[in-house]
């Protein structure tokens, strides 16, 4: 299927482009995940605590607003998010092209997703335990910080791992605005240039990367879960 000189060519590209691309993928994914978590986590917390029967009920219009806001961002296709956030990217990064600039739409597209996952994790915390925290006079902030987040930690970690690999998947598309990374190589060579061997190699490295993220995430989540004996 793959001839000798295709191998030769692929090898060259692997050697010349993969190290940088790998590095770009890793740092774009991690930084985007980091920022998306920084925004998504508090938002997810608000989604749970602000509910009518939550620990710090917020006005109903405000809840609806956050809900709508997240849904708006989640309903916009990533391609369009990329365009829409250009002005924002420009303000933050100074430009809209390149690897660094691609982090902004990634963050915008994924923090609502993380917020929903956080919401889902926090909802699993035993209401009796939250009640206990209220009974000792903990403030809503303390309940979140000292009870809900620690109790939901394994689940949060599990979900953040899911988010990270999703972001990694999205990051492949950032080649569209000049972002780099393995996803871009896979798409550029595989999709636009039919060099399936290179695509395959890029995908293999991506898989390894996801595998590593996933293993680390699951490992810590399982290790840190004190409910299992």
């Amino acid at each position, binding site marked *: 299927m793959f001839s000798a000189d295709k191998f030769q060519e692929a090898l060259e590209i692997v050697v010349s482009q993969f190290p940088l691309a790998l590095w770009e993928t890793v740092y774009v994914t991690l930084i985007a995940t980091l920022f998306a978590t920084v925004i998504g986590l508090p938002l997810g917390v608000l989604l749970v605590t602000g509910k009518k029967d939550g620990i710090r009920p917020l006005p109903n219009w405000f809840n609806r607003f956050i809900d709508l806001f997240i849904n708006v961002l989640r309903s916009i296709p990533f391609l369009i998010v990329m365009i829409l956030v250009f002005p924002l990217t420009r303000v933050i990064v100074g430009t809209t092209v390149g690897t660094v600039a691609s982090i902004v739409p990634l963050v915008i597209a994924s923090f609502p997703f993380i917020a929903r996952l956080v919401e889902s994790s926090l909802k699993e915390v035993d209401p009796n*335990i939250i009640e206990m925290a209220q009974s000792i*006079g*903990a*403030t809503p902030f*303390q309940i979140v910080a*000292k009870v809900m987040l620690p109790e939901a930690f394994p689940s949060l970690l599990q979900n953040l791992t899911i988010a990270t690999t999703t972001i990694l998947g999205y990051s492949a598309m950032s080649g569209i605005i000049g972002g780099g990374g393995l996803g871009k190589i896979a798409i550029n060579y595989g999709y636009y240039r039919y060099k399936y061997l290179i695509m395959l190699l890029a995908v293999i490295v991506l898989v390894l990367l996801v595998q590593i993220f996933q293993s680390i995430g699951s490992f810590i989540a399982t290790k840190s879960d*004190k*409910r299992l*004996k």
Partner: protein
Amino acid sequence: MIQINNLSKIYNNEVEAIKDISLTIAEGDIYGIIGLSGAGKSTLVRCINLLEKPTGGTIEIDGVDLTGLSEKQLREKRKEISMIFQNFNLLNQKNCLNNVCLPLLIAGMNKKKAEKRALELLEIVGIKDKATAYPSQLSGGQKQRVAIARALATSPRVLLCDEATSALDPTTTAAILQLLKDINQKFNITIIIITHQMSVVESICRRVAILDDGMVAEKGEVSSVFSNPQSAAARRLVFPEGYDDKLITADEDVRFIRVVFDGDIATSKPLVASMAVEVNVVASIVYASTKSIGGKTYGSLLLSVKNDEKTVKKALDYFTRNEVSAKEVFLNV
């Protein structure tokens, strides 16, 4: 002082868990709340610290109506009220030490001091060796003791215990009760105890309220309620099947005397036997629950004697002479 006025709680607009309850609990008191399963005991104490929003009524602690407080004021108030939950409610992801630390950290103590205090408390409840174990690695009784340690950690002014010793063996129970008694005396804290172990009420409570189907069936001094239960609900609890209508109606020729030992009388004193010898009253033990701790007897006896004014009087006099509190009990409604 805790003043509960006309408290009621209706769940989901249909289950009337408690109905128009009024109680006064004096500062420094140890107050027992007993009742059948589902009577509303947990609901009542959960209303005291407003974990459950009452449907009606007020709760005043030291003259402050909790139902009228702001969120923030309520939080401050709650720091003075500890609760031991029926189902422990330990944080699953934190070890025993950190579970006990939690209320201390919430109250603003620094981590180091909190850990020191938590360790002390774990030692007191006898599970210092489990400090680094997680709840899932503990036995039922061990979990309960962590919950007790946590509740005591902040030296609260009020302690609400929802079946705090139900998972404990008698020895550990006695030790925990002694601990509660001690801190009650030392720090004058008010303790409210829900329990279904009558022995717990007898051994540590001063006053008791008996809940029945969401209402207070009876309340008062433990000695008087237990020696002379007026309501059917009270009798059912105080003499679990010891009280039996058949028994009473069949034996119209006996009368009952309840003797309560509160440690003032030495074990070695052979009361029932001596009474027979000394004043010639032959009493039969209908129900007994006593134990001797350090040579003193605690608990109660229900004796039956001949249905005869003089005999009853002789028996009561005998006990009075011996400085044991005894009362006639009327078991027929």
